[in-house]
């Protein structure tokens, strides 16, 4: 992660904090910034943020762990999020999720051993009339059956 960066993690975190100077209640925007920069929110940022924002480390830790989005470890190269909301369930989302788990050999929230694919569940992508819906590396896809999911994962892998 540090390849190409001469700055220390602490300095990079401080730069993100500075970029949000003057914003009210800025911890969430800062954490989004950290995740965008590092790909996850490392434990090492907790004391830096606590000091910069003048709040306790427990407060920072509490916020990071409350929200599903903030990852403790980097995701795989391809991140697949399968919607398990009711509207997608009505058109076979549970079947699709079971297929993805079998195909990848991982459970929800896990990454394949080589670090290729992370499989996540998500409750609603707002595409409820065109389910089952899946997000692959942030891009939304509708009407995804098992074959289409395999194709999408293969395409993402080839990139």
């Amino acid at each position, binding site marked *: 992660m540090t390849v190409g960066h001469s700055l220390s993690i602490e300095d990079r975190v401080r730069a993100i904090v500075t970029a949000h100077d003057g*914003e*009210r*209640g*800025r*911890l*969430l*925007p800062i*954490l*989004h910034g950290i995740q965008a920069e590092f790909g996850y929110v490392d434990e090492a940022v907790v004391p830096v943020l606590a000091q910069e924002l003048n709040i306790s480390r427990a*407060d920072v830790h*509490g*916020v990071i762990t*409350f*929200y*599903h*989005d*903030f990852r403790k470890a980097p995701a795989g190269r391809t991140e697949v999020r399968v*919607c*398990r*909301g*009711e*509207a*997608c*369930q*009505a*058109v*076979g989302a*549970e*079947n699709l*999720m*079971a297929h993805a*788990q079998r195909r990848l050999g991982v*459970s*929800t*929230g896990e990454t394949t051993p080589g670090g290729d694919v992370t499989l996540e*569940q*998500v*409750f*609603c*992508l*707002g*595409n*409820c*009339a*065109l*389910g089952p*819906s899946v*997000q692959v590396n*942030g891009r*939304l*896809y*509708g*009407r995804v059956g098992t074959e289409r999911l395999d194709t999408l994962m293969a395409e993402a892998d080839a990139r």
Partner: protein
Amino acid sequence: MSTPVTVYVPRDSAARSVGADEVAAAVRSAADRPIRVVRNGSRGMLWLEPLVEVATGEGRIGYGPVRPEDVDGLLAAGMLDGGDHELRLGLVDELPWMRGQDRLTFARVGVTDPLSVDDYVAHGGLAGLRRALERTPAEVVEEVTASGLRGRGGAGFPAGIKWKTVLEAAGPLKFVCCNADEGDSGTFADRMLMEGDPFCLIEGMLIAAYAAGATEGYIYIRSEYPDAIDTMRAAIDIAHAQNWLGEGILGSATNFELFVRVGAGAYICGEETSMLESLEGKRGMVRAKPPIPALSGLFGKPTVVNNVLTLASVPMVMADGADAYQARGVERSRGTQVFQLAGNIARGGIVETAFGISLGELINEFGGGTGSGRPVRAVQVGGPLGAYIPASDLDLPMDYEAFAAAGAMVGHGGIVVFDDTVDMAKQARFAMEFCAEESCGKCTPCRVGSVRGVEVVDRIIAGEDRDTNLDLLEDLCELMTDGSLCAMGGLTPLPVRSAMRHFSEDFLARDAGDRTGTAGRPVPEDAASGPPAP
């Protein structure tokens, strides 16, 4: 041939999810004469996406659903002149789906270029704000109250009364917060409005800010909506450049700054006090009420908190007057509601129409029944915390009070259709599982009750002491309803109890290896096994 033909290809993320970007690229590269491609919002006929429209002398002619590989054939058939083709739908405004609606909040969505200032003003934008600025804040509050507009986020609280409380609260700093954490499955209207007509939301927030005396606003958008986030941010920048935001708005003495904040995957942050905590940079833990947010909201200041569609309805209310809005609807449900047809539905999408339409009309006449072609068995209205309604009750009118009387809720008008392969015990289990996953953890009935709920449903499904466990589940539901701090734990029993009441046969014991319900209905393989562990 010097004037380029305007071709519309939606930029809405639902349209993009089925290939709108690829279609737009194909049209651009294959067109044999100058064209202007507008990436509009979606008309809400999602089963027709990507829906391509061509501006002709007689109006906008639609083609859909278009795949990239269809584009060459469409162009050869003279699509740019509205030529005939098997995908040609005719004049989009004349399609029965569109004609049957009464689009107020969604009047511009799908019609205009979402980020075009000229389009916005040419289609009635800013009329409401200008009319509001000519009145006193108290008069604006009065007008919104008189319109009968109720909160579209689900609770249905009268918007004007909330605004009045904030207006009358003392203090130099007040906020307007837009709840765009549209986490309920089966709802996508907030997203479509933000992607398709972002200035409308900004205008609504401006009117709310003027009426309540607020100078700063936040739109809290869930992170699952990256397109809506980008569009709103771009619209805010444009609005600033137009002096629709900032200081001395439109030459008045009104100042208002507006910011987008992004959620982080917590469903509970759609609850208003949890959202306020999140905006303050904290865990999204629900607050006890009172104090109400109108008096002590964001950072303890008086705060208007409204849903996207509530705020986006305000410009029209102010432009056309309270009477025009009030004239629509039934009983105490006035105006229009933006219904969303979702799940197993042949024609899913947006139906904006006056309150009072029946669930059956929406599902069968607009929606065309299930997508699978099998009979409708259950319909969940109002999101994951809404009741399951059996097919026999589809004559229920869409009206807050009529739904409440039937033990259900209209909520935000999201309608999720299930066909006859659905296993309702499994849906009841999911309601509890979802609550366990998404509870903020502050109150015990929700945090612990939901976990116990999953276990009890599992025992019922396994046939262990069925009657005892059904009683226990009923007891647990009662406790969660009465004892929870907010709607998460308080309403999770609604889908569970409605499933037990209307679909009791699904809760009968199944022998190991018996994959059918006792009514002899086949249960598909994926429905018979429990959902994967979270």
